């Protein structure tokens, strides 16, 4: 639309990229290189599972037990996970199987939290008018609790915990009473506006049973979201959860989540 667009990209680039910028770029690569490794490892784990799947071994839910790990320090709040989830699972607008929250904490302890459209469109800069000393993004999704209140409270056995450790909703049995939505302390469930049944994260069951990654994990560009299987020998996520200071959300609810957080700050609820 203007001359800027018509200009030769290469020359412009040479002009712009000063030495200082390049140095900064190098530092960034170093800092985030670790994440590239993390991602390729996740991919390697997946390849092993895919190999098994393609070798014609039928999926046995009794041989898997999944867990999820979120590294808060790596989340850049891009919302790629929310968009990928919505596309993969046909999530209706204004409802979320996963979302990203932004926390901004001031020196005096004022907490400003937001999640515009669940973080689906990313985040805009936000002026709180306060001296922000701590700010971070927190991805959220169903915690697939081992002691899940939603399954306990489902009157008809439509919500259940599968042998591989996932909380799922049988769309053909659900009566749409909404009790599970009330019971979930994490706000992970909603009543689907079209099916009128409870809907929630399935950890992309249709993908993971074929050896693929959940859409959100695959979409995460920084490795903030990781997916593991405690039954897989040498599983890295299992190892991190077993050996690192991880936290869970709302431990006072005693729901025993299978979604763990690294570097979670106490403001998060």
């Amino acid at each position, binding site marked *: 639309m203007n001359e800027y667009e018509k200009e030769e990209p290469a020359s412009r680039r040479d002009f712009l990229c000063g030495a200082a910028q390049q140095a900064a770029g190098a530092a960034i690569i170093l800092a985030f290189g670790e994440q590239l490794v993390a991602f390729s490892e996740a991919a390697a784990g997946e390849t092993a599972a895919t190999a098994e799947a393609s070798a014609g071994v039928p999926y046995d839910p009794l041989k898997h037990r999944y867990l999820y790990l979120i590294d808060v320090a790596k989340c850049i709040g891009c919302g790629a996970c929310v968009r990928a989830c919505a596309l993969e699972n046909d999530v209706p607008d*204004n*409802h*979320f199987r996963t*979302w990203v*929250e932004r926390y901004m*904490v001031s020196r005096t*302890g*004022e*907490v*400003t*939290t*937001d*999640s515009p*459209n*669940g973080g689906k469109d990313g985040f805009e800069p936000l002026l709180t008018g306060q001296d922000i000393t701590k700010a971070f993004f927190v991805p*959220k999704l169903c915690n697939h609790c081992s002691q899940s*209140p939603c399954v*306990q*409270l*489902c*009157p*008809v*056995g*439509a919500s259940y915990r599968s042998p591989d450790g996932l909380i799922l909703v049988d769309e053909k*049995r*659900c*009566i*749409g*009473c*909404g*009790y599970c*939505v*009330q*019971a*979930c*302390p*994490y*706000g*992970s*469930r*909603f*009543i689907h506006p079209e*099916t*009128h*049944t409870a809907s929630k994260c399935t950890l992309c069951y249709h993908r993971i049973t074929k050896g693929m990654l959940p859409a959100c994990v695959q979409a995460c560009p920084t490795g903030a979201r990781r997916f593991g299987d405690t039954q897989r020998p040498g599983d890295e996520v299992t190892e991190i959860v077993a050996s690192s200071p991880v936290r869970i959300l709302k431990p006072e*609810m005693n729901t025993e989540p299978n979604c763990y957080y690294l570097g979670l700050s*106490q*403001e998060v*609820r």
Partner: protein
Amino acid sequence: MSHALTGYLFPNDVHILWSLMIVMYPYITGLVAGAFIVSSLYHVFGRTELRPVARLSMSASLAFLLVATLPLLFHLGHPERSLNIVITPHFTSAMAAFGLIYTLYLTLLVLEIWLVYRKDIILTASRSRGLKRWIFATMALGVYDISEEALRVDRRVITVLAALGIPAACILHGYVGFMFGSVKANYWWSTPLMPVIFLFSAVMSGMAMVIILYLILMRFANRPIDPDCVQSLARWLWLFVVMTVTMEMLEIVTLAYERNEEWVVIAPLLNTKLAFSFVVVQVVFGSLIPILLLGIVVLMQPFLTSPLRNTITFIASLILLIQVFAMRWNVVIGGQIFSKSLSGFRESYHPQLLEKEGILSAVLIFIVPFVFLALFNKFLPLYGDAPETKAATTEEG
């Protein structure tokens, strides 16, 4: 560090999911349980002065029980699957007990009413002809035995059923309270006091409804109002109001005093979104005024004329019906106003007139039991004296 309320809601927590229909449900089951307790005061506890309302309260209980499931069906995303709750009841869920408790209670109530009215049914059958005779003969199950011996057996069974009905009514409504009280994720609902509060306010609303029905029915039937009956109902009602309000306040005072995490959301909730429906309607208008009015009836009995007593009791009962509705509203809607993020409030809930779960549906559902009662009254009078039960006879003797 303090968690200031900055208005963040979990993105799935935007709408109020449980609507006016879910307010109606505990309200109606409360009337069911409460009215039944009134009839049991006569049949089991021998309060003979309540004999004029024994039949009425039992029939009212049944009339409301028959529509108790309607608000739920209006609310469900898949009402056609509602029977799943009986086909595969998941008994770790309080809600799953619904089918069993409802069936049990309905059976008890129908049996009891059948026995209470059996003599009338048989007399009607023998007096009428054609279809009416056939219907009433079927209702009598083809047995026309109204000998003194048979009626004595009936009375004994009625007493047993009424006695069994008390725990059944308590379970029916206590379980509704438990359904809310056991949701640990919701700080406004989660308290062991919830079933007890529900139960007591249920008895309160049931009694108030029986008083109103009795006074109106007597006026329309042009029959004398029994002053002892009204005086006794007012006294019982006063007791239950005092106990209910005590527990409702106890819950708030405990929350306020302990100042746990939940108070961070509940205090602003009561100060803003629930200020009118809780503080004004439920506590000041709905509780204090009836306590004073009924207090006058109870304490100043010798100085009151019958019409004055009836009027005061009627007004107090009407206010209490509003109080209990406000209480259900404040529990059901209030509990959904704050997000589980504990740092933000949803938009206030205003039911629409014409939506599926809206005001018109609620009003229509609430009218049906009165239509049932009017129909019932046409064939089997509600004000007829109930047979004396064993307990009542003993008391008199």
